[in-house]
């Protein structure tokens, strides 16, 4: 049975962050997928088109900013909002980048509750993806 839910792709090379965020977001009713680097994430984003991506900055192969850039230039993924997680001290503002799909930059340590609230806020006007799929089919 198809349920109405948003799909969120979480990208980080640290397993504990993937675990914490997936658990929190699943408990909030979202469907989650995880990727361990930018390349992996880009591949998944192109095939599965998530409703939102949460990505770390520092990752092997392709970092979070490169990922956002790749997503923003591809017509299939340009609309997907991206939330960037960055280590404190590694100060980065939305305005530091010219990448339009980055909606918010959060510092680590982050509050999982805060992330869940932000996700809800960013997805408030986005129809749940499974409904979109069934309409398209």
């Amino acid at each position: 049975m198809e349920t109405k839910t948003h799909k969120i792709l979480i990208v980080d090379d640290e397993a504990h962050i993937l675990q914490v965020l997936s658990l929190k977001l699943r408990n909030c009713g979202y469907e989650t997928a995880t990727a361990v680097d930018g390349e992996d994430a880009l591949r998944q984003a192109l095939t599965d088109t998530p409703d939102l991506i949460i990505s770390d900055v520092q990752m092997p192969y392709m970092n979070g900013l490169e990922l956002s850039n790749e997503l923003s230039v591809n017509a299939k993924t340009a609309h997907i909002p991206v939330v960037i997680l960055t280590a404190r001290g590694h100060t980065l503002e939305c305005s530091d980048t010219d990448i339009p799909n980055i909606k918010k930059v959060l510092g680590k340590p982050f509050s999982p509750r805060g992330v869940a609230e932000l996700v809800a806020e960013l997805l408030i006007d986005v129809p749940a993806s499974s409904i979109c799929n069934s309409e398209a089919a």
Partner: protein
Amino acid sequence: MQFGGRVKTQHTATYSQQANDAFELQMRAVGIVVLHAGLHEKIAASTPDWFTDLLCKTPMLQRIVQANVRTWTEENNMQCTQVCTGLWVAPMQTSGRRRTSECGIGVFVTDEFCDGESFHAICQASNADVTMIRDLIASTNPMSTKDVARMASLFQMAWNASVQNEESKTTVESVGQELADSYEEISMLYTMTSSMNSVNHPERFIELACSELLQTLPYEWIGVQLTIGDRLPKPGDKLVVASNEQLQTEELQQSVSSLLMTVEPGKTQIANGDDALTLEFGPATLVEPILKEGAVVGVLVAANKQGEDNSASSVDIKLLSATAAQLGIFIENALLYEDLNATFLGTLEALTNSIDAKDKYTCGHSQRVALLTAQLATAAGLDPDQVNRCRIAGLVHDIGKIGVPESVLLKKGGLTDDEFASIQKHPEIGAKILQEIPQMEDILGGVLHHHEKYDGSGYPHGIAGEDIPMIARLISLADTFDAMSSTRTYRNAMTRQSVLDELSRVSGTQFDPELTDLFVKLDFSEWEMLMIDHQSSNKEVPITLKEAS
């Protein structure tokens, strides 16, 4: 959708149910029926169908389960037992780690089952048609009896692997949950630690601590009550409380204050369900002492836990005591800062008083200029920190007079050019004296330029208009007003109205016109009180305070 709070989710339960069902389906595919039984429960299947119904109602199976269920729930690695012809059972524990009152049963039905002496009785017990059951069993392609032992040990392995897998998943899930809680804590403590430098505004840090805790812990309200009297004017003795509800803070303050009498250093009070704490504040209320040098200086209270699970968790207690410890350190720092600040201001006051005291006519002048400068700064819309800087600048504006010979300062009658030049040096001397004090950096301009005039005809630099620092333009008005309103060696005091008229007359040439407009509208009653105070302590000078009639 619910955020926050520590909820033992149904997620795990649902998940494990799904995993169970999947395991049973897999076993059925290889010809094994999985049933379960408990000490107080009859033998049953999680997804019943004709086959499980038939087996559950089999009298021999029921008897053997009844006789052995206690042993089966307590021991593992038990042998596969024959129940009757073509029917074997292999009991298994449901959990490797925890002892439960339930066990799983793998049932093996072989191709001899339908030919056995009990088959008719079994069908009868289920009110089932013998031929139909025979056909159904044949359709399941039953194993042969010689395979039972092999299948039983495979079943045992699969069962144990499944239990272990289940446990690992539950562990990962709960570690993830605990990790998420720790992230909440770290993020909260990080926010608090990075705000600890706000010693100037202790109430802000305490409010922040309460509201951050409220967001992280599922309590109705979080409050801090201190016992340090007026030593920190804000928050003083007032209860600081954060809540999503409308609370009667005055009533709460009384109840919380009474906690201060009972709280002991290093000991968290936890409401245990039916004690006074629960009655007064609600379930799972936590009271944590705030300590300074080992003595209780306040309490941090988390009251009335929300949600279904209304007992205090170790996370609640840990986070509350970590916050109380931070509050203790913060309060200690804030008090030290307060002391330091008081000493600093006291020293400045003593210094300026000693200069003012050289001349009986200028007694208290610096304090009064400080007052008026601060009042004018407030009227000009500066923030409290800036107003405070203006007050200090007003206090020390004449400190350079220490470098001007007394003979010149106290001379009655006209000054020679040289003497006047020597007096005019006092702003520069003052700035030079103060430039070594780091806290004075922001106010040096006020001291150096308080004799500049708006049209550029003042000293020492002859700068004009907005080039004169704001702080100096404020002092200039306050200084002139106080000087003209006092008796000096060379003239008597002027009336209030004539002073204000004179200020307005030179507004735009000597003074910033906008600031002059604000200055003449100030309330001078506090200044008057100071003036009377200073004059009565200096009886030699007749009281010359003149009210405009």
